[in-house]
Every structure is written in structure tokens, then in C-alpha cells.
């Protein structure tokens, strides 16, 4: 079951005030069911009185309950490159930033949250990590081993993607992914020579000849 879908928005910068019937026409996804309402008709409108925050919190609570009921609330995020990313609320709330915004009801009247610093591709990846890590695996060795091998494969990406994950997880405040990405960068450095490190990260050697001699002399003992 795909947690994330992408659609092109018609007007990149404009926030649309949502109305459920319009939503169903523009995007094909299951109708949003208000868990508080007894009216279960497919075209139920989102009552004006119920804030986005309440719905998401209710959906998040039911998410951890019976999954058969499937009362999932999706969140819509606008990436930096103007694409809309739809994600399950429970998955998105692994980001402390999004969680705080929902809890503080900062999305205002609209349902689309702007994420101006992260591209849609990076968002997809980050939420893929979040979805996998929804399960905590507290003490269960099989789960923690599975998560560990997922992490190893997940973070084996090219440097540009790694940077995107780093910056994205930092901005969205997804601690586990931030730690994973930072450790990967550190692992790329371990055991390499200064030349190799400069090549990997495209760093210019800016020592003057005298400075270089001084640095080499100071550190000579450690290289032996």
C-alpha cells in the first residue's frame, strides 16, 4: 500500500482552500471520513468546525488501534520544486516539525503544508524511511535487525542524494534519519587519505607550501 503519491499542482504558489468534493475530483484517493461523524456517506464534507489538527490526531490515534478500520488521514505537502506530496499522517508525524505544526494547528485554514526547503524526491525518500520506522522494534531482535539492514541499504546512495537526505531530515527534524545520514558521511571519511577525502567532497587544498610542510611535520607521527 503506497503511503506517498505525487501530483502536479495547477498553480504552484497558490494554496487552495479545500472542500471535499473538489478534492475527490482532482485527486483520486479514498474519501476522507470524519471519524467523529456518524454520517458515513462517501461524499461527507469536512465540517468547518473540525480543525485539521483534530482530524489528524484522531486519525493518528485510530491508526495505532485497529488497522482494519483504516481511518487514515492523509497530509498534503508542497515541496520546494512545486510538486504536491501526499502522505499518511502517521508517517509524516515522524517528522517532529510536522508533528509540532499539526499539534499547534499551524497549517491555518488550508490543508496543504509548505515544505520550502525539501524537494519532492527527497520527501518521498524521507517518508519511505519514516514508514519503515513506524514500528519501534523495542527489544525485538528480529525487528531491530531488519531495520538495521534496511537502514544500511537505504543510506547507500550517491553523495548528492545523501546531502538531500541530510538537509531534509535536519529541516523536518527526523532524528533517526539525521543520525544515519551523518554517520554515513563520517563512514565515507574513515580510513581515507587527505587526498581521497578532498576528491570525494570536492574540497580544495588551500594550504600554502609552508603551511603544508608544517601540517605534515606536525602529524607525521600519527601517520606512521
Amino acid at each position, binding site marked *: 500500500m503506497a503511503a506517498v503519491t505525487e501530483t502536479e499542482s495547477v498553480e504552484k504558489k497558490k494554496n487552495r482552500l479545500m472542500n471535499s468534493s473538489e478534492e475527490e475530483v482532482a485527486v483520486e484517493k479514498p474519501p476522507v471520513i470524519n471519524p467523529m461523524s456518524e454520517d458515513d456517506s462517501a461524499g461527507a464534507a469536512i465540517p468547518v468546525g473540525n480543525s485539521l489538527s483534530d482530524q489528524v490526531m484522531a486519525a493518528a490515534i485510530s491508526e495505532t488501534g485497529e488497522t482494519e478500520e483504516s481511518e487514515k488521514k492523509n497530509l498534503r505537502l508542497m515541496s520546494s520544486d512545486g510538486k504536491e506530496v501526499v502522505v499518511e499522517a502517521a508517517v509524516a508525524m515522524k517528522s517532529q516539525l510536522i508533528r509540532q505544526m499539526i499539534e499547534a494547528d499551524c497549517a491555518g485554514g488550508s490543508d496543504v503544508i509548505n515544505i520550502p526547503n525539501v524537494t519532492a524526491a527527497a520527501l518521498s525518500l524521507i517518508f519511505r524511511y519514516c514508514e519503515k520506522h513506524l514500528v519501534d522494534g523495542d527489544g525485538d531482535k528480529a525487528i531491530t535487525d531488519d531495520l538495521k539492514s534496511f537502514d544500511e541499504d537505504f543510506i547507500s546512495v550517491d553523495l548528492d542524494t545523501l546531502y538531500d537526505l541530510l538537509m531534509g531530515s535536519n*529541516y523536518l527534524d527526523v532524528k533517526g534519519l539525521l543520525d544515519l545520514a551523518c554517520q554515513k*558521511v563520517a563512514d565515507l571519511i574513515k*580510513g*581515507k587519505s587527505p587526498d581521497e577525502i578532498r576528491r570525494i567532497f570536492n574540497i580544495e587544498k588551500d594550504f600554502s607550501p609552508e603551511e603544508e610542510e608544517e601540517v605534515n611535520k606536525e*602529524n607525521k607521527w600519527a601517520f606512521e
Partner: protein
Amino acid sequence: MSSSRNIRAEYDQTPQHHIPLIHSLSDDLAILCLSRVPRKYHHVLRCVSKSWRALLCSEDWLSCRSRQNLTETWIYAMCVSKDRVNCCYVLDPNALSLNWKLLGPIPPQCIRREGMSFEALGRKLFLFGGCSCHEKATDEVYCYDACAGKWEEVARMPTGRCYFLSAALGDKIYVTGGLGLSSVALSCWDIYDCRLNEWSSHQDPSLIPDIVKSFAFEGKVYTVHSTWVDRQYARAYDPSSRSWEDLSRQMTSCCHGPTVVSSGILHMLDETHGTRLMTWEKENEEWVLLGRLAQGLTNPPCQLVAVGSCVYVVGHNLSTVVVDTEINGARPEGVLVGSSLAPKLGSDVSVMSCKAVTI
């Protein structure tokens, strides 16, 4: 655009002349990544570029590693070789195979000095004073910054000293006694403030120049005195209140060997009858046996240094025994369990003093 969204500030625009540590990343994130590189690779990081070298000497670096519990402690041993040449060795306790490595050359002025004091404070090591057959007691002080990996001369002591006493407390080093002092300095504490790189002096009439041993413990300088009739007594000096306190005579037994504080407990290596590791029990004010080291395991005379709950017994030729006091505390009075290392060095060396530096 939703107005209430600005919970996170935008990244700072880097000024034009600033070269980022890693391109495409803000320096904050670059530091988070680099701080995870283990200490044994730090010398490589220093060689990459000017900004990386500067980073490794900065406070940001230390505090970032400290915040994430990534700091590592290395042990430095100041030694003297058979031909009376001073040298410094370093040990990484976390390395897969324990190995003492010769640190680069120490300042040429210190190579043949005797009677120097060796202290560690923060990320720095200090060599104070000393004398030699060519020079009288000197007031020179040299400092090794373990982050930068280099030696430099720092503020000189108010008076020259050799074979004197020192203790590191908080961010200051207390120095007193010894030979070669000016007469003014006879009853005087000279205090070095590491942050300001400054010395101050404090006259103390209660400072009796018969101290044979001193060490820092629980915020005080513990001193053991020996009178001319060969009687011993122990006192503790509290620098914050500038007052002395008499201690139980039992404390004077610590003259039998080196002392170290590990996990807040004072330990002493008694090498008089076999090799016994003792701990000071505060309530009863007496030395209690923690355990014995198997005969022939250590190479006395030894020096002690502690990293966490592990006590390192470093003897002649840097033969080292590591004793975890927590594990051994469960079965006191038995033979201590530990690991040992007997390195093959180029020449005979004796250990004068060992200190630990955490980065």
C-alpha cells in the same frame, strides 16, 4: 503562503569569503558529520584543508563531540630513555590492538630536562620547569594542544622550579615547593589559569616545605609531609577557601606508590609487598585492598592513570596492565583480572608520569 509556518529559520547565507567545510552543506551539518569521525582519524582531517584544520582546534568541535557522547580519551606517558632523553608516548585505549605510539618530537628545550612536572588540563598537556646539567631551574612552561597536535611555549612561572609538586584542579594548576626557587617563593602557591594563560601567586604561611607527595582529589590538593624525624602526616588544601584540613595518618601510606582517582574513588598502587591495588575508604579513613596483581605482571616502578572505571598500570618499557575496577570490585581481595600489554620498544624507557586527555 501560510504565514504561521516559520518555526524553522532559513539557513544563514554564508558570507562571500567563507569557505564551507563541505560544499552543499551548512557548516552546522558538516560539523555534525565530521564530529562522528573517531579520534584516530583526526590527524587526517587536519591535513585536508585550512578550514578543517581550524575546526579541529575550535570549541565548537569539542562541544559537538561532547554533546553527542562521542568523546574519546587517550593516555599520554612522559618517559625518559636510558640515555636520559625525554619522550612522550600515546595510547588509544579503544584501538583494536593496544599499542603505544611515539608522539612527535617534544620541544627541544625539554628533551634533556629533569625534574619537570607533567600535568593535563582539558585538551592540553603541560610540561613545567625542570633543570639540567647545563641550566639551573627554569620557569619555562610548554603546552601540547592535543586537538591541534602541536607544542607551544606558554606563560612562564613566576619562579624557576625543579623537582616540585603540582596538582590540576578545575581549570587551574597548582604548583609549589621544589628546588631552585627564589627565596620569596618558599611558602607560595603559584597558580596557572589555563583559560587566561596567566600565573598568580599566593603566599601561604601554612605551606610547610616538607611535602613529599601531592595529588588532586575532590577539589582539594592532598599533601603528605615528612618531618626531619621521619614522621609523616597528611593534609588537604582547599583552594576555594584557602584553608588546610588535617587528615588521618592512614593517608600517608599512599607514599608507597602512585595514586589515581577513578570513578571518584582514590586508588593507590602499593608495590612494597607484591603489587596491591588499594582504595581509600572515606568513612573509616583507611586503605582497603581491592586486589593483587599477579607477580611479574607489572614492571615497577609504575605510574597510574584512569580512564573511566579502568585503571592503567604503566611500568618500565611501557608494559601496561589494565584493571577494570568495577568488574574487580565485585570480588575484592582476590587476584585482579585485567588485560596486559608488553610493547617492544626501540630502547629502554622509564615512565615518569601518565595523563589522560579527552577529546
